[in-house]
């Protein structure tokens, strides 16, 4: 079984929250090397050569994202996205609570790579414990001289500010996050301009996921080649997959990208005895389901896209044959309707309407035409919104409606029988 321990090394085995424990495993050595020996361009080069892609969902190459920053030496910001809320994802939550110094060191390296002097971490409001743990780690790092003015006597200054969210999924979208960080409603901005050009306070800003930044540390330690040697042609390195649902050992598993879907299910203990697989949602609540015929596909960005889905944030939800997909579809559509910020009409209205239709289907009170209407409405939301939230409503719903049409249509037939008049 290709489970690897890179970021997850030691998690669940020993307490690594304190700075001494983290230093024992080599912590902050890379940060010291970066500040003393490397130029920002060296770190960018390393990130590009490693093939590291964003682990928050979009999968954009990290080095290339950084390279979009203007070349002038003006103020720029790094924001670490720890607003993990994609349904089924629970890896950043673990990293924040279990190995806060690794998260911090990754942030420091990322900030240095883009020559920023002020980095922010936006922590989901619900992660109160994680926030406290990270604050304690930051205090330790500051006392050790890793954060603040004139780090390692190099003349390089870097301040870190920890910012707590307050309950809004949409703030995980990078421009909504920047608005939230500016003390505004978490409503996404029109792009372009992209944050790399005009982000926080209108200044060039890079938003990177927790896991993405954390991988910079082992990449520095072991080299870009070490990372790039693992994975598939365009999906390099390792990924933490959050496996949940109908498996016997749900949890976070760090695997080489390209591990077959079937093996990931096995790593998580397989299905419960006597059950058969119905579907897998391989990339969080926003992704379409894949099915039995996809089990031998390599789990990477390209193959998940080819199968009509996406790798997303690595949330991997397994559904067995006991699953009621009408309820599941209602659950996710309600989620997106609830989390819509309300700016774009298709998302705001479409989501709420679909929630209502699905609610009556769940109750067995669907009316003829509901099946077709759901697909039509879903299709008329996608692609017409400022941000990807609206586009996230259709994939799961459509994939299970097409795969299991009878499950949906049966809820319509029921109402006709129940209404003799």
């Amino acid at each position, binding site marked *: 079984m290709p489970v690897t321990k890179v970021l997850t090394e030691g998690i669940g085995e020993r307490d690594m929250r304190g700075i001494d424990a983290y230093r024992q495993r080599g912590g902050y050595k890379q940060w010291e090397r970066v500040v003393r020996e490397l130029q920002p361009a060296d770190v960018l080069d390393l990130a590009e050569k490693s093939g590291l892609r964003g682990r928050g969902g979009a999968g954009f190459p990290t080095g290339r994202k950084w390279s979009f920053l203007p070349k002038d030496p003006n103020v720029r910001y790094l924001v670490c996205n720890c607003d993990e809320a*994609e349904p089924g994802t629970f890896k950043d939550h673990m990293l924040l609570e279990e190995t806060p110094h690794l998260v911090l060191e990754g942030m420091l390296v990322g900030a240095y790579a883009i020559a920023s002097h002020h980095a922010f971490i936006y922590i989901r409001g*619900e992660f109160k414990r994680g926030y406290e743990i990270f604050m304690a780690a930051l205090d330790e790092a500051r006392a050790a001289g890793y954060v603040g003015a004139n780090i390692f006597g190099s003349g390089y200054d870097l301040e870190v500010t920890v910012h707590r969210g307050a*309950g809004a999924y949409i703030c995980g979208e990078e421009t909504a996050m920047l608005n939230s960080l500016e003390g*505004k*409603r978490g409503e996404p901005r029109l792009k372009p301009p992209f944050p790399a050009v005009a982000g926080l306070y209108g200044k060039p800003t890079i938003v990177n996921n927790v896991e993405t930044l954390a991988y910079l540390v082992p990449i520095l330690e072991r080299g870009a080649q070490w990372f790039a040697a693992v994975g598939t042609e365009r999906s390099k390195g390792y990924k933490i997959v959050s496996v949940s649902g109908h498996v016997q050992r749900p949890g976070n598993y760090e695997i080489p990208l390209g591990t077959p879907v079937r093996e990931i299910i096995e790593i998580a203990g397989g299905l419960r005895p006597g059950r058969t697989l119905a579907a897998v949602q391989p990339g969080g609540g926003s992704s379409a389901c894949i099915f039995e015929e996809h089990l031998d596909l390599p789990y990477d960005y390209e193959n998940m896209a080819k199968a009509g889905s996406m790798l997303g944030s690595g949330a991997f939800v397994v559904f067995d044959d006991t699953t009621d997909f009408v309820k599941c579809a209602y659950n996710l559509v309600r*989620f997106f309707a609830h989390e819509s910020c309300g700016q774009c009409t298709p998302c705001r209205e479409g989501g709420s309407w679909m929630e209502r239709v699905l609610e009556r289907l769940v109750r067995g009170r669907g009316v003829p035409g509901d099946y077709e209407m759901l697909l039509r409405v879903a299709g008329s939301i996608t692609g017409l919104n400022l941000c990807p939230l609206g586009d996230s409503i259709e994939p799961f719903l459509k994939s299970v409606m097409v795969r299991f049409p009878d499950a949906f249509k049966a809820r319509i037939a029921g109402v006709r029988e129940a209404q003799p008049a």
Partner: protein
Amino acid sequence: MSSDREKNFPALWERLRPECERIVSQYERKRSALLPLMHLFQAHEGFASVEAMHAAAEMVGITPAEAEATVSFYTLFYRRPVGKYMLQVCRGLACSINGAEDVMAYFREKLGIGHLQTTPDGVFSYEEVECLAACDRASCMQVNLEFVYDLTPPKIDEMLDAMRAGAYAVAPMAQTETPSRTWAIPQDAQVAGGRKSRGADGVPRPDNAGGIGDASGVIMLDNIINRSITGFTGTRERAVVDSREVVQVAEDESSHAGH
């Protein structure tokens, strides 16, 4: 009549001022401190009071209306007083296929209340929330934002008993005012602001607990006429409505009008 909490607010603000100033100083622009300041006030008051929003607005240099418009976007700011234990049960997909529906039904039965409600004794508030990012330990929940995993009926019983006895491991929230039945401002009230209509069938929702919009997003004059409106200035004036006028709300400070 103003409550004790309102009377005590200036002293609380004075006491927290150094911490507030430290928070504001972390940011290049003051407005960024709005959410952190509200977290701080809520930790002391148990909810996000109008006074706290005013104070935060003043400290970061925005209008009270801007502060409220922002704070109301975020579900973790409770706009009205809540119970001592905020029970937030995950209704996310991974939990829901692993027993969350039973867990939620159990809570509703044991507490005798539903989603977004507080028990009459003011001890428990109950909410069903979106995915809490702990799907490997389904069914999960938070108690005053501390996680509780792998929920079962006996575990829930034990938890509720300990809370009632004041012996639960998680500290109760500050409670500076007696909570009412719900802390949520009904969605209909947001609808009046032009956001998030529930569709257009125009049927007022039966649980409308004071909003002024109907389900279609249309402000219902019936709900405004003869209704006291508490302005940000603290003045209470009656809204005057007839078929020709829209709404006139007298305000002490005209500077607040138009925002």
